[in-house]
């Protein structure tokens, strides 16, 4: 079963069409890299898939269910890490975990277990610091952890590595591979084109339309390009 199936998805804001009848699918256990310049429509698309934005047209199917009709069931299977990490700055990481676990419906023993896991991963001292005091690398780790508290099958990561140093980025992708091994499906949007090679498949959007869709290696061979960046530039015709 495909994890996500998108057919003719469209979003219009007044006269401006942000997303223009795009179609793609994501297989279960796949890591999809979502690329594109700013304003291409990546975030809009993700928001529509997540149900945060009403599409102007098209169909979205998540794990076999219609994303609009069965929104509540679908929500249960999704984990989301937003662009700004969306952790509450005044709370500690541990308290953030408690909060998000709680509102996802986890019971108290489960919540306690999660917090223990967090402490094991981050180290006791860090998990008790307020988020605003943490450096971006740790914040990113924490945000990823939080998005996974409900053990979702589908994970959406919106620009998770922005502002993070290359080493931390590597560690991050390591973690993502770990998720895939657990059978999760992951969608990652990113600006960093070299990260694209980490993904199983990439999808490139430009001005609301799909311009590239496929496995990175295969695409590179097909088009005789040497890097994803080159692919990318050719795909968008040299504009930025």
């Amino acid at each position, binding site marked *: 079963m495909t994890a996500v199936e998108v057919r003719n998805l469209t979003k219009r804001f007044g006269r401006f069409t942000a997303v223009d009848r795009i179609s793609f699918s994501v297989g279960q256990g796949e890591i999809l890299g979502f690329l594109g310049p700013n304003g291409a429509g990546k975030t809009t698309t993700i928001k529509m898939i997540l149900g945060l934005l009403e599409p102007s047209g098209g169909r979205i199917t998540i794990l076999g269910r219609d994303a609009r009709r069965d929104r509540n069931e679908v929500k249960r299977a999704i984990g989301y890490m*937003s662009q700004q990490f969306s952790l509450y700055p005044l709370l500690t990481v541990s308290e953030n975990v408690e*909060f998000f676990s*709680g509102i996802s419906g986890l019971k108290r023993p489960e919540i306690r277990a999660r917090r223990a896991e967090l402490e094991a991963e981050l180290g006791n001292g860090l998990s008790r610091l307020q988020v605003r005091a943490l450096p971006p690398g740790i914040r990113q780790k924490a945000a990823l952890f939080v998005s996974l508290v409900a053990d979702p099958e589908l994970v959406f990561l919106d620009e998770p590595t922005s502002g993070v140093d290359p080493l931390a980025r590597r560690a991050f992708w390591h973690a993502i591979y770990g998720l895939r091994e657990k059978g999760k499906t992951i969608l990652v949007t990113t600006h960093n084109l070299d990260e694209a090679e980490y993904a199983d498949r990439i999808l490139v959007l430009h001005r609301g339309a799909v311009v590239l869709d496929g496995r990175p290696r295969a695409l590179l061979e097909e088009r005789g390009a040497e890097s994803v960046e080159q692919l990318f530039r050719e795909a968008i015709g040299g504009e930025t």
Partner: protein
Amino acid sequence: MRLFYLVKKETLEVVRQRELLALMFIAPLIQIIILGYVITTDVRNIPVAVVDLEQGRVSRAVTERLVRSPLFRVRRVSYRDEDAEEMLRRGEVSAVIVFRDPDAPGRFAWKLPQVRVHLDGVDANSSQIAAGYFNGLIRDVLAREVKRAGAEMPLEARPLVRYNPRLRSINFMGPGIVALLLTVLSMFITSFSFVREREQQTMDTLLLSRLRPLEIYAGKALPAVVVGLVDMVLGIAVVIFWFGIPVRGNLLHLFPAALLYLAAILSYALIISTVVSNQMQALFFTWFSFILFMLLSGFFTPLESIRARAPALMILTDINPLRYLIKIIREIFLKGNGPAFFWRDLAALAGIALALTSLSLLNFKRFISR
């Protein structure tokens, strides 16, 4: 259950911002104290000047009464002809009383001067009150003159002021001020909290969770309600113990009214926060709404004059929750009345609260599934 975590998070966020705590609890108390000293409908120390061209017994008696009265402050007594208008324009006095010789010997044995009172009309309120005081004072003196001449003033007023014999305006204004402060603070906190969540973009994650819109709504509104009620209790305590106002009725009757009132204005604040796009707009909108609520509540100016002058605007007072709260406060504190007397106002409050809460909930749902 999920709601509990939301409320806990909101509380943590507030508690970890010390200046916010100060603003929410300490500042209002200070404000109430200051306000208590300032807000008064009692007008005193009105600066006046006397121009006495007659210099008879009556004019001297009046002048002396003016000097001794705490209501007035006589800044000048002149025995030459002065330009009253210029004096008023300069702004050193709000009123000039001019005594002249009687223009014609009347058929009566009294020798009473011509009295003219010149008032600075810019402050319509004070000048009218001043005019009222003068009338009372001057006629008092004149009445004594009449008596001296063997006649008697036919009518004398015997006033009996009920519920607030010394007419201390603080007795009523005090709890009213608490209501006002309750309003401003709760409205600000609520509308800010929503706008801030939007600006921080953490709203998305809330929406994606299993929380239902009603739960998100309640989770944000509940802390504001709690703060509002705590502030109210503190404020009323201050007003009672610091200013010593009497409480004739049962204070517990105030709580249902306060809860309904808070529900109403917080829903209103939430609607505002979905309409504006940033915190500054939220501030302005909330502030101006507050002023409107205040003006149309019967707190400063009587509702009867609105009815008389602009009946079309009465409908605004009918839907103004503050109006009913003020009335209930008055009834409880000063008249000692119970719900039997103000059940209608309570019902009106309940109706408004219900309407506003449903409206804001619907609006919220629509807003998040944009």
